């Protein structure tokens, strides 16, 4: 690599570092605070003394407060919710995006426009309407009702992203599979799908997150602490202390975010793996 290219690269990385600095500082504070004792900070960010007390909630349920369910129950619920949403959303959106990209049928254009317009409907008031719908379908007080709702709300995004990715797959690769005797669905599964893995990875990230972070629906539509997810767990700590227990709050927040970071790293790998082996044209 030439000197100019190296210098270019160094400049790019410097720009990235600069852009990320405030974010990195804020997260550093959060992680440090989860091991901090008391309220004082040195250098504006480091606790004056350190402790692991804030993390006791992991093995001692009462450390996070009375009548709070175990953090592991909440974690399990969060995983069930987020993974169910992700799997359903990815499979439904991929199939629908494929249809919109590769098939002509009556009403296709208006339908596509309609799917986009749906996104303009605010979930703020849909909260009340959804409550009424779930109530009459007997789907209240269970995480499954919330899974279906969240998938429906996520689908327009997924369909559009996937349609875009299918559009960019050259028709020739599908054609040659058909020549080889594949059915259309066979060609879809064996030839096309592997080429849109970056798209699948990106909608998987977002749908997983939507489930992982959901608070309002879980809070409003379930009535039992056995349905608590991590977001409710966190909220119950936040509101009762007037924000005084920053240490515990920070520890729970870090715990809440760790699985997502691992999930991201995994999904990132998915993205780059495809880049290397995927599109051959």
């Amino acid at each position: 690599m030439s000197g100019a290219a190296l210098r270019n690269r160094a400049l790019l990385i410097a720009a990235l570092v600069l852009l990320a600095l405030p974010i990195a500082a804020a997260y550093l504070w959060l992680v440090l605070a989860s091991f901090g004792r008391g309220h004082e900070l040195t250098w504006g960010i480091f606790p004056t003394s350190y402790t692991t007390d804030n993390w006791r909630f992991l093995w001692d349920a009462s450390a996070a407060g009375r009548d709070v369910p175990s953090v592991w129950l909440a974690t399990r619920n969060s995983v069930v919710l987020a993974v169910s949403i992700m799997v359903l959303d990815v499979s439904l959106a991929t199939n629908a995006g494929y249809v919109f990209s590769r098939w002509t049928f009556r009403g296709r254009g208006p339908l596509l426009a309609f799917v986009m317009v749906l996104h303009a409907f605010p979930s703020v008031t849909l909260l009340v309407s959804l409550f009424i719908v779930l109530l009459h379908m007997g789907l209240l007080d269970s995480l499954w009702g919330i899974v279906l709702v969240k998938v429906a709300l996520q689908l327009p995004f997924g369909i559009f992203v996937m349609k875009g990715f299918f559009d960019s797959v050259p028709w020739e690769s599908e054609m040659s599979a058909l020549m080889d005797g594949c059915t259309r669905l066979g060609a879809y599964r064996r030839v096309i799908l592997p080429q849109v893995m970056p798209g699948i990875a990106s909608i998987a990230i977002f749908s997983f997150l939507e489930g992982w972070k959901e608070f309002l629906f879980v809070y409003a539509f379930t009535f039992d602490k056995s349905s608590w997810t991590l977001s409710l767990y966190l909220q119950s700590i936040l509101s009762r202390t007037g924000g005084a227990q920053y240490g515990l709050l920070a520890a729970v927040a870090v715990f809440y975010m760790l699985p997502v970071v691992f999930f991201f790293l995994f999904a990132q790998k998915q993205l780059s793996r495809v880049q290397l082996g995927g599109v051959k044209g």
Partner: protein
Amino acid sequence: MWSPGALLLLVGAAACTSGPASGEPARDGTVTLTAWTIGPEPSSYTRKTNLVAGAERVNRALGAAGDRRRVALAVDFATTSNDAYGKKLVFAFASDNAPDIVCGGHELVGQFAAAGRLAPLDRFLAARPAFVADVFPVLWGSVRHDRRVYGVPQDNEVRVTYLRVDLLRRLGWSEAAVRGLPARVAAGDFTLDDLAALAEQAVARRVVARSSGIWHRTRTGFDWFELLLAYGGRLEDPATGRLILPRRATLDTLRLFDRLTDGGATPPGMMSYPDRTVYAGFVGGDVLAYLTGGSWHKLEWQHAFAIDDARFASEIIAIPIPAGRRGQPPVSVSHPFACMVNADAPDVELAFRVIERSLDPDLDIAHALGSSHLVVRRSSGESAAYRADPFLREMIGLLRFTHFAPNHTKLLRLQRILYDAIRGVEVGVLTPEEALDFMERVARARLGDDVVVE
């Protein structure tokens, strides 16, 4: 009147409404009851344990009387915010998931009794004159709706202004002057103007930094009305039950905040301060006064900042909200916590008896002491155990100045309008007069005939 849900049945989805048929009296006489209560502060956990103890005592009484019924009570204690708890109740009542015993702020009476969700308790109370007479009479007014009683007060508190004793001393106050302050406030000899002047003096003499004279809460809430009351306003027309926006008292209140921010006593951006910063500032000794405090703050701060009783008493003093005009009485606002019975409870009488026994004087006192609340029974208030706590003794004395929020369904809206106006004045977007004008226009638009401007 029809439910929009009727339309939805067309969807054809299986309408297999779940939810266990709670509490049909079983063959063996067991009545299953559910109850929800909330802190959100963890120290109020006795709200739950008292109900459990009340159920045990009812069961013993039932056994002694040869009654074969027994109560099986499941209580849930929430620590999520009051606001979220209220929403949860709305959704729970609308979907028949509400508990049999509902505990929460007394305003829930105004909300759910009007909707027909609560059982009136008058006939049970009529049979217990001694119990009714022992509860502070002012409290019964807070659980009444449309001339019927729908709840039993469970605990009480008063709103106060907290001042830093150490900073008063640095301003040259003698010990006698500090300890005599509550009496002066009670006599109307120390007004809101005096408090503002004191804060300005503290800033001028650099006892506190600029904008660290008087701090206050940062969100909407009933607290803001206490200033209107302090300036002699009233909030409800008892004859018509309509809300009132008192022009003169409101303008005086808005002018007070204008003065506080202009004079450097209060930061213009106070309302955007994080809670923790506000508390750490006052309790940490950087700020002279916390205007919108409550009796429960003492224990909350003691826990959060590890301060014992002796240190608290030597550093911080509580006074009722000073009067707006000289010679007038100060005010306080109480927000009693109450327990109500769901109109659909399997056995309303038993539910009531559980609530009644959960207020036995020993339980009443244990909860008040453990959570820095006020007792609801006069006999508990006079007990040696309760009077041994000087702070709570003083607080219960403030009941003579106290007011309650009107149990009006649209109070929340008026509350937000007042909050917005004060915030507008503080940041300097509005003059007090403009803010009053804003309040009148928006109140008319959003509350219509439910509010009278006077």
